[in-house]
């Protein structure tokens, strides 16, 4: 009697554990449900551009004028500047990221990825971002600039001695070999302001608008060194790749203030000042690729994805219950909990869901059930050898474990490499896939096992044998 009682007590504990697991699953599911219907929730699903609609822009940065070792610095300044610009035109949750060509790539390319959710007018976005001026100071190579000097001579005669830097305009001059990079660029600008010349210095008469630029400490030091070392040389000022003026350096300039005059109209000067204050680009950038997805298309994809997920789950459940019967039903319950846990993780981490990510999730549901199949088949084999259910379940589980572990490791290998391979789109897939593998492995060890050992089926009776059987055998 004693042994019977202890055996049934042992079974009660197992049933209790199984109920606890199911309650846990229900709580997770409730969390997902309540945070989804409540739109003000702190844990919404996050959707990528292909589901929510928006623009994705990739810029290539031209770093050939940046000193070795300072590339990362220049790129992060670039990112900050662009981010500031975007914040001005009010997009919610923009993403501005620096990306570098991979280690396997032969030449280094630095890129800036800009994601603007909800912005489908890509032209306007590109214009707004592109408006930011890039400002550079370059020395004029005297020999190479022989031709240009004739022009300079003419205007130099007209210039007055009053200005710190005399005003020489070489309109329309394209940047080329005759300019030497100095390293002094818009990234060193602390502040810019609009002033008007006092009347005598201008080639265009009274009150010519002049833009006064104040450098930060590093910039001021650089500017001082530059003007000290190169007295008598011409310093060309490039705005967006075009020379706007190339004044002669008369004397070393301390204090870090430079004036730029270049036949500005008052409006143009005012705009330049504003743009410089918002941030001049430290390096020139070029638009390399664009993607704009309409909100309707994203919505359609989201609905189709969710619909496919639900239908796929139902078909999978029908297959499992028909083929594996009672263990199949256990697998479906475990799978429901898997889905609930994954969705909860998507919200908590949070994972940005994309079309590929949803496909990865649906795929992972099909894979998550694999462990249950391996276990169910093993249990069946053990039962066939005449073992009792308890023994069959624990033996079946431990024997199936090696195959489950090994195949999941293979998945994880693929997942990790996919993540490394990935652009944003692929990373979404890889993250969901990898997360799915780990969660399904954990749920196979804990949930499926706990539920299976709690089963009490008399396998000596034909109904019991039927319930634990599978396929076309009765």
């Amino acid at each position, binding site marked *: 009697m004693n042994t019977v009682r202890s055996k049934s007590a042992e079974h009660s504990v197992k049933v209790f554990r199984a109920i606890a697991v199911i309650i846990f699953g229900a709580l997770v599911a409730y969390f997902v449900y309540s945070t989804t219907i409540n739109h003000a929730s702190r844990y919404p699903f996050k959707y990528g551009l292909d589901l929510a609609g928006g623009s994705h822009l990739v810029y290539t940065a031209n770093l050939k004028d940046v000193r070795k070792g300072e590339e990362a610095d220049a790129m992060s300044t670039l990112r900050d500047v662009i981010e500031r610009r975007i914040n001005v035109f009010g997009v919610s949750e923009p993403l501005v990221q620096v990306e570098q060509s991979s280690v396997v790539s032969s030449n280094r390319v630095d*890129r800036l990825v800009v994601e603007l959710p909800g912005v489908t007018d890509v032209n306007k976005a590109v214009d707004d971002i592109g408006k930011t001026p890039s400002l550079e100071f370059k020395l004029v190579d005297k020999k190479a600039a022989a031709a240009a000097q004739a022009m300079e001579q003419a205007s130099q005669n007209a210039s007055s001695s009053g200005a710190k830097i005399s005003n020489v305009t070489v309109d329309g001059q394209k940047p080329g070999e005759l300019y030497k990079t100095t390293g002094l660029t818009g990234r060193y600008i602390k502040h810019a302001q609009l002033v008007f010349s006092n009347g005598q210095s201008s080639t265009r008469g009274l009150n010519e608008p002049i833009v006064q630029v104040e450098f930060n400490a590093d910039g001021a030091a650089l500017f001082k060194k530059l003007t000290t070392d190169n007295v008598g040389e011409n310093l060309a000022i490039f705005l967006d790749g075009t020379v706007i003026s190339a004044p002669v350096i008369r004397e070393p300039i301390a204090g870090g203030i430079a004036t730029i005059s270049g036949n500005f109209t008052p409006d143009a000067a005012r705009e330049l000042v504003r743009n410089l204050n918002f941030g001049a680009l430290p390096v020139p950038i070029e638009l*390399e*690729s*664009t993607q*704009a997805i309409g909100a309707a298309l994203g919505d359609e994809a989201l609905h189709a994805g969710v619909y496919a997920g639900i239908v796929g789950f139902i078909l999978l459940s029908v297959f499992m219950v028909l083929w594996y019967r009672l263990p199949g039903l256990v697998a479906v319950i475990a799978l429901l909990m898997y889905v609930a846990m994954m969705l909860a993780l998507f919200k908590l981490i949070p994972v940005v869901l994309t*079309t590929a990510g949803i496909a990865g999730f*649906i795929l992972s549901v099909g894979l998550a059930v694999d462990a249950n199949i391996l276990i169910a088949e093993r249990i069946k084999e053990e039962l066939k050898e005449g073992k009792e259910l308890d023994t069959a379940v624990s033996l079946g589980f431990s024997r199936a474990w090696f195959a489950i572990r090994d195949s999941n490791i293979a998945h994880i*290998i693929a997942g990790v490499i*996919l993540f490394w*391979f990935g652009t944003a789109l692929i990373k979404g897939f890889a993250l969901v896939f990898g997360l799915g593998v780990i969660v399904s492995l954990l749920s196979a060890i804990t949930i499926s096992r706990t539920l299976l050992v709690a089963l009490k089926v008399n396998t000596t009776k034909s109904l019991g044998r039927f319930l634990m059987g599978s396929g076309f055998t009765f």
Partner: protein
Amino acid sequence: MLRYQTQLILLPLIASIISVVAIVTWGLTLGIDLKGGSLLEVRYPNGRPTVDAVHAAVAPLNFGEVRVQPSGDKNFMLRARDLKPDDKSKLLAALKGAEEVQFNSVGPSIGAEIMQKAWWAIGLVIFSIILFVAFAFRHVSKPVASWKYGVVVIITLVHDILVPTGLFAYLGHTRGAEVDVLFIVALLTILGISVNDTIVVFDRIRENLRINIDKHRKEPFGEVVAHSTMQTLARSVNTSMTVIIVLLVLFFIGPVATKDFSLTLIVGMIAGTYSSIFLASPLLVLIGKYQKN
């Protein structure tokens, strides 16, 4: 037994040869994300014009070759060289009555870089898996050394990705299907998943070999493999079946963007399932037999 198994190899062998021939004859049509270019999807809410009319409308823009493909009932997909946003506006203006659905333009250098990375990724996955399989089966050395299990897995995996690639060479030729980044992702995923079935069979071989040693039973290697393959047949087929079920649903009712992706995976999964039975196991037996002689 061995004779029977050797013949089984014919099926994956023929499938591989057909795929290679398809790839060599037709080649693969690369998507814009791999070779650069642009794609504009437009919608004509009031009914769309003919393809010729669209060609005529865009011809004056001098954008080079513009390929026009109908999509759904009211949409067109226009493919051209990589266009800047300004160019796109001109294109959209030329298509009177059309609304933009999506626009994607990729510079050629990004595409080339992804392509390069893709080769590395495929190589890395295969290499990691062979290392892993050799490691997992390191205690199995008789009669076939563990690293040879790894080699068999590689041959199987190459077959598994050749078949969907061959299919896309054919689809590219007949229907203009493109090989894009998602296709490569699908191949990488197939590599990770289809090795499962092979691992399940090999795991059983490993176990049966151990049981034979424990029981001092002498069984020819070919018999052990055949025996193990039969024992695991149901689960190999069923684990693939569950994945194929959800993928079929994704293919038929899922988002348009992942249709080709799910098709690639379905074909790869089917190839992966039969290759573990018809290719991996017989190869292992052949290696065992070859060693004896």
